[in-house]
């Protein structure tokens, strides 16, 4: 048999992987190697696989992914900084049949929007919250984030994050997991093919959960910001593995459904 030529392999019937139909043709404005692009396409792939393009509405944040609405061909709302969970709540409450997800970075979700984050999950809103934690403010030029590691240099902590001045990196995902309204809380990454596949499974589960009315699904993706960290993408992945994973360990923290209200109900106040 003659040796198989490349042209014989590259045929539509042999295609096993390609760009999701939910992704638009707009080139992503992100820096090379940015984790945002990977998470965007995972959300797109999940929407495509669940066939829910018409029923899904996304909430874009303020930060690097502010223009996420240019990349996924679904209806969108662009929230003020930190307010995506409130916007998602407002939408979901008047449209309970829709799939609603918010997508936020660490500054957005864990600093300015901490209250909205905690209370949306505490109410058990049936939404998907995706949280990109790259330990830095990327959009504004690499300032210290609530999740910046101790000793990590940023433009507003040029000599490294100092706990005496700046306090500790915030493990908001662990805090969220304590809330009775949470159904599914997990921490993922997208730095290797295996992790990409796991992360996609988590996103899919979260979207499926939101249809079951079992509470909030919250996915942290520990990510890189090679431009903000001022190293190349491959080195950034290595730094993340060695420095961030010990503090932000990967895996599911809660997997089930929101707590039963009977657990906390009290007797009526009597005079």
């Amino acid at each position, binding site marked *: 048999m003659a040796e198989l030529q490349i042209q014989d392999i590259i045929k539509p019937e042999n295609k096993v992987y390609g760009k999701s139909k939910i992704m638009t043709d707009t080139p992503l404005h992100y820096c090379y190697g940015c984790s945002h692009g990977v998470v965007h396409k995972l959300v797109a792939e999940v929407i495509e696989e669940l066939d829910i*393009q*018409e*029923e*899904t*509405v996304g*909430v*874009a944040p303020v930060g690097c992914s*502010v*223009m996420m*609405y240019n990349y996924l*061909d*679904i*209806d*969108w*709302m*662009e*929230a*003020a900084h930190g*307010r995506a969970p*409130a*916007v*998602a*709540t*407002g*939408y*979901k*409450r*008047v*449209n309970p049949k*829709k799939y609603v997800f918010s997508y936020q970075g660490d500054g957005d979700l864990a600093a300015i929007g901490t*209250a*909205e984050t*905690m*209370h949306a999950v505490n109410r058990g809103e049936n939404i998907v919250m995706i949280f990109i934690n790259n330990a830095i403010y990327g959009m504004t030029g690499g300032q210290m984030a609530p999740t910046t590691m101790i000793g990590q240099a940023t433009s507003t902590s040029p000599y490294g994050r100092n706990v005496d001045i700046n306090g500790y990196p915030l493990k908001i995902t662990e805090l969220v997991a304590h809330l009775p309204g949470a159904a599914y809380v997990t921490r993922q990454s997208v730095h290797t093919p295996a992790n990409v596949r796991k992360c996609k499974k988590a996103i899919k589960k979260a979207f499926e959960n939101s249809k079951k009315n079992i509470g909030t699904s919250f996915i942290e993706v520990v990510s890189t910001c090679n431009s903000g960290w001022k190293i190349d993408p491959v080195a950034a992945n290595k730094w993340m593995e060695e420095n961030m994973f010990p503090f932000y360990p990967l895996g599911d923290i809660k997997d089930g459904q929101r707590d039963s209200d009977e657990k906390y109900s009290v007797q009526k106040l009597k005079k």
Partner: protein
Amino acid sequence: MGELRLMKGNEVIAEAAIRCGCDAYFGYPITPQSEVMETLMARMPWEETGMVVLQAESEVAAINMMYGGASAGRKVMTSSSSPGISLMSEGISYMAGAELPGVVVNVQRGGPGLGTIQPSQADYFQATKGGGHGDYNLIVLAPSSVQEMNDFVDLAFELSFKYSNPAMILTDGVIGQMMEKVELSDFKPRWTDEQVEQFNGSWAATGKKPNRERAIKTSLELVAEKQEKINEGFQAKYKKMQEEEVRYETIKCEDADYIIVAFGVSSRISQKAVDVLREQGHKAGLLRPITLYPFPSEIINQMADHVKGFLSVEMNAGQMVEDIRLAVNGKTKVDHFGRMGGVIATPGEVVDAMLTKIIGG
């Protein structure tokens, strides 16, 4: 004749919301308007019309929940009082920037800061000049009775959807707290999903359909020239409001030499002052702006050709008086009388102010 009831202004806001087919109320408690959400929660409209009522974690969250609900093409509202409106100003600016409809009720109290819990009209600037950042305006309605608290909820929704712009009902602790006879509106059903699609499908984020581009409710445009075009669009919209939506009431103005301009509770006090002034032989009249934005500048400018002076009566240090001066444009005398910090003026004080500042001044 609709159903007659004796109700508080704040309670009427709640009842009117349910009756006009409002889809959701998001709020946060603050004096003197907490009865709005309390009434809604006790009424349980979700059982009756399907209307959502949600107590948010803050005014900031409440206004952003409105942003979400409004993006869906739904009728959403909130209410608060002055300090809470300051917190909402960010979200209101974003709603104006994203051209989202919705109704915000401000039951004003004295400021600045925490100020007092007594009634005030010191948020006139905030309400009529935008309030948050950027070049934008709200449609601002100023009820002066519990009846108008009922009527203006539906009107505010109508105007905010007509112009894809948030509307504000600017009232005060007096109107919010006082009880009066009110003829309630008849029930209008909430829009069905199909009606939302029919009325608002051209702009709302109702889920991407194969036959249209995706809807993006955003206030962001990074290209300066494009952002300027968007702003020009807003200005054209505001101009149209000024041409078509000005509402005001005139009382005894036909032969008046002296005009009091007052809105909300101040207009009721001023109406009494007009009567007293007339008893004393002074031809006084009252102009009550109903829309504070768009402001009834034209009628004031016309009146300025023949009246001898205007007195702006407001429960603040003199805010609306600036718009009156702009409208009068130097043609005649304009002055201000106001009490601040939650103090309510008496008709006698208004009469004295007219006598000393305008008639004898």
